[in-house]
């Protein structure tokens, strides 16, 4: 059982090599929140941006007297414009995520949680506010939030066989990251995506699959069971099913990609056999992407 602290440590390690993630702040007016998120232009904020000569109309209290004392003109100190974005994370906690084809490999759940937490670390380091859907709390940018997320990941709540995203208080114009294997019924996902798109939420669908699920290395008389045991399928020659299974898997992936494209989301498929860093790089790029 991976403890909360261990999750946190691994995720910090994974995120260590990244510059702070700058999520694009769209529709600034609706979601103005002052934070450390410099916009590289003058505006409201805490950090010094530049001195400019005082113009008529500037309130006198804005004049920086210390700087002005060194010359004949008056100067006004401008601050950097800072804004922060809210990112909602949803990580599938269903039992199907606990699968791994090789005891030496991490389960899909472990990998998905790691990725989500690493992204959370990066976002919080960059001044963004992060919320985990399962916690139900509003987005926060504190280290405490990280701790809460990590603790939630370390716990093992009761879960169904296959999961579907449930995001109740999704803030408008925010961002979202869905991590799951998306092997269950796609209908709830479609509904949730449609709802999110209505609120102007953009995001990434990250599908985490085990290499065994891609390769289907089975043969002989086999009874396949889902992780929770609710689904069963018996075959006499598992090897013959391989081609048809792979077709179906490809269809599922295509459907997810289409869905994402339709609502303006990104779709990414990650395998637990690959290093987590590559997936994080992609998520980093996808969340930072500006339009």
């Amino acid at each position, binding site marked *: 059982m991976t403890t909360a602290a261990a999750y946190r440590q691994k995720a910090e390690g994974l995120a260590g090599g990244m510059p702070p993630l700058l999520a694009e702040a769209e529709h600034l007016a609706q979601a103005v929140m002052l934070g450390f998120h410099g916009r590289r232009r003058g505006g409201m904020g805490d950090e010094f941006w530049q001195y400019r000569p005082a113009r008529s109309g500037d309130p006198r209290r804005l004049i920086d007297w210390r700087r002005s004392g060194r010359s004949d003109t008056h100067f006004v100190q401008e601050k950097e414009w800072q804004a922060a974005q809210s990112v909602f994370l949803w990580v599938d906690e269903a039992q199907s995520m606990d699968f791994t084809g090789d005891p030496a490999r991490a389960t899909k759940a472990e990998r998905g949680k790691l990725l989500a937490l690493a992204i959370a670390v990066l976002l919080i380091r960059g001044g963004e506010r992060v919320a985990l859907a399962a916690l139900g709390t509003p987005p926060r940018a504190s280290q405490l939030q990280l701790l809460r997320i990590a603790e939630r990941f370390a716990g093992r709540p009761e879960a169904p066989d296959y999961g579907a995203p449930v995001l109740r208080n999704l803030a408008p114009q925010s961002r979202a990251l869905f991590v799951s294997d998306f092997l269950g019924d796609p209908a709830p996902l479609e509904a949730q995506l449609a709802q999110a798109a209505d609120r102007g939420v953009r995001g990434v669908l990250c599908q985490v699959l085990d290499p065994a699920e891609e390769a289907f290395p*089975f043969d002989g008389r086999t*009874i396949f069971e*889902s992780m929770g045991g609710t689904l069963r399928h018996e075959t006499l*020659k598992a090897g013959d099913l391989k081609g048809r299974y792979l077709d179906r898997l490809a269809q599922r992936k295509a459907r997810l990609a289409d869905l994402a494209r339709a609502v303006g989301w990104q779709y990414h498929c990650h395998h637990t056999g690959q290093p987590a860093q590559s997936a994080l790089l992609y998520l980093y790029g996808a969340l930072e992407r500006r339009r």
Partner: protein
Amino acid sequence: MFTIGSIGFTAPWLLLGLLALPILWLLLRAVPPAPIRRMFPGVALLLGLTDDETQTDKTPWWLLLLRALAVALIILGFAGPVLNPRAETAGSGPLLIVMDGTWADAPGWTRRLDRVEAALAEAGRSGRPVALVSLTDLPGGDLPFRAAGDWLPELAGLAPKPWLPDAEAVADWAAALPEDGFDTFWLSDGLARGSRADLLAALEGHGDVTVFQSPHPVLALRPAGFAKDKVALTAIRAAGGAVREATVSARGLDPSGIERELAREDLDFEAGATEATLELDLPPELRNRVSRFEITGLRSAGAVSLTDDALRRREVALIAGRDDREGLELLSPLHYLQKALAPSADLIEGDLLDILLANPDVLILADVATVSEGEEAPLLDWVDQGGLLLRFAGPRLAGSDISRAEEDPLMPVRLRAGGRNIGGAMSWGEPKKLRPFAETSPFFGLDVPDDVTVSSQVMAQPDPQLSQRVIAALADGTPLVTRKRVGQGQVVLFHVSANAEWSTLPLSGLFVQMLERLAVSTRPAEPSAEDLAGTVWAPDAVLDGFGVVRDAGNLAGVPGERIADGLPGPDMPPGLYTGEDRRIAVNVVGPDTVLAAAEWPASVPVVGLEVQAETRLGGWLLAAALALLCVDILASLWISGRLPRPGSRGVAAALAGLVLLAVPGPSPAQDSGDALALAATSEVVLAHVVTGDAEVDKVAEAGLRGLSQVLWARTSIEPADPIAVNLETDELAFFPFLYWPISEGQPIPSDAAYARLNRYLRHGGMILFDTRDADIAGFGAASANGRKLQRLAAPLDIPPLEPIPEDHVLTRTFYLLQDFPGRYAGRDIWVEAAPPDAEAIEGMPFRDLNDNVTPVVIGGNDWAAAWAVDARGKPMFPVGRGVGGQRQREIALRFGVNLVMHVLTGNYKSDQVHVPALLDRLGQ
């Protein structure tokens, strides 16, 4: 027994089990392989997919066949199938059981007895009277036909004899057989023999003859001989068959008197060969201890070969009085002795007391006048216990006054002062020739060559006993070789030198023969019949048929003629026979013995072979069934998909694991050793010994670094960074020079380290010992470090030392020096002493000293501290005061330069002795 063709079954009713096979077939067919349950999230995508074919619902036919076959094999296997079953046939009438009873029977003796017992039992069942006869122990009178049961108690008393049947006795016995008809069962030992055919013909005249003979060829070992320096052993076998390996072991007493195996080696018969030889390289000490060779694991007198004096090589110790004269090989007193003795004896050289510990057979003192008091008593003891002390005269003996006034116990005669020269430039007369040897002399019979002349000799004082002691004389009657018996040993004096200075005797073949006669070198291996005639030899130990050496007890002595005959028999069992001054081994197998397998005519049934032909197949069938079941396991796994697909990594890994199971991994390379060797040999490197005291080691390292920098700057020697050497682990041979600072706390090196150090010193290495205490103590045991040095250096092989003389080459190898200060300018340093005969050459500042670099330099001036520099090249320690101190440091560095030059160039500077002569010649 139930037979089908050539196969019989011992338990045929089990074959009924085969009827159950069809039922098994049906049962197995009905049960399909069990499915595997797999957890797989992707099952959501599988729902609704159907299988194309449903054939694997039932067990496939080939798997069924496999299983049915396995079960059939098991049933057949347990039914006890036998190929070529032997059908016993019973005869009638009296039965004669003939046993060869030789040593060749011994390995399978119990099996033979079992066979006899079985034959007796069979004869008992059919009421046949039986006679049991051993050809090596023929009974007198008529054939002892008795009821079979009567023979059973006597079986245990039968034993094979360690000799072969006497052909004549067998022929007589065969002629005296009764007229009545009887069948014969002959247990042959498998060796071809001349008497066999006649006996067979005689026996066939009375009835049927059946022969039992083991198919294994008889193996035997010939007596050991010499091949050059090695012991040559030859094993023989009766028939050339397949490749066979035999192990020969040499056994003898160890130093504590317990018999144990001294050596062991394998010997290979090639296919078809009847002989196999082995050359055993034994150290002389070990070889002289060997009392017998035997083929291990073979209980037979033929597999044991006792050794006698012929295998011993005598150990001869050589001591010369003039060891220190350089280079003149042909004048060495020992040269001719070594040449004469090396082929036939083992030579020992060394210190007299050490040599006596090795207890040599002969001790040769070449021109040694006196031995010290402490040595004389053990030497006399040794002679008293049978040692042969052989002395040669020479200038030293002639010049000493040993055995002048009264006879020295270690000299055979008294000597007159001086000696005499004949036929030289300053004397009258011709060099004397030798007088033919007298009959009483041990040299009697040797031809005296004309060219042997004597020009100088030491003279024996006329004495009443002199004439008895002379064993060789010159033509004018003066003694040349005299001998005196002391206790069991003897002292022999050659009145001439052992080299060719005084006589031409050492140049002649006579010299070697005389040494041989004196039993200095090996005596001939085989005594001839004439040698043995008239002697009686008492058995010391005898061999029984099984090859076990037993005490001879009070067996009667054997005349020499019988021993010369060589063939053991009832009157002369094989064993070790002791005569007057030597022991002779009589072995079952002689050096020329050839073994051949007995051939029987086709009319005689040879039972042993038929027994061999009867093979039980049950085991093979069961093994095959087991193999099939293993295949079945694999096949079942494969069918049910539990076996990884062929070609996947799992299978490859499993196969590789199976194949490589027995292959050991590569041993870790000696990286550190190689790195040290490379570092030490790619450039000149100075090295210091690790003392374990961190401060001392640091100073030594810094000192050598400072000296290396000075060498680099001033000379053509360009050393790399110094290396710290751990005596316990590191190889020393790479370093021309070792600096060894002495600290009180350093541990004494182990024996192995001392062995390495001694090897290092003997092969040209140099160690600079530095006690680092010249400020407080003089040389010797006055200081703690000095005492420590004495303890450290005690096990080292260090030659005599002297304070460095003014003309030592160390004073001029690079700089001209007379002082050798370090941080302290304390006292002398000590180097190897010059040999006593090295003389100063007139007008030259130094002598032509020993050709070697001195192996040690010992001092206490703490040179390393004077040489030491820190990382910036600044001196680490103050030396002296002011300008004088600087000068002292400079001289210390110059000493270091001279020392390293001396190490690397040897005595090259000593050759300046010849510079005036060379200049003189150039000037002409």
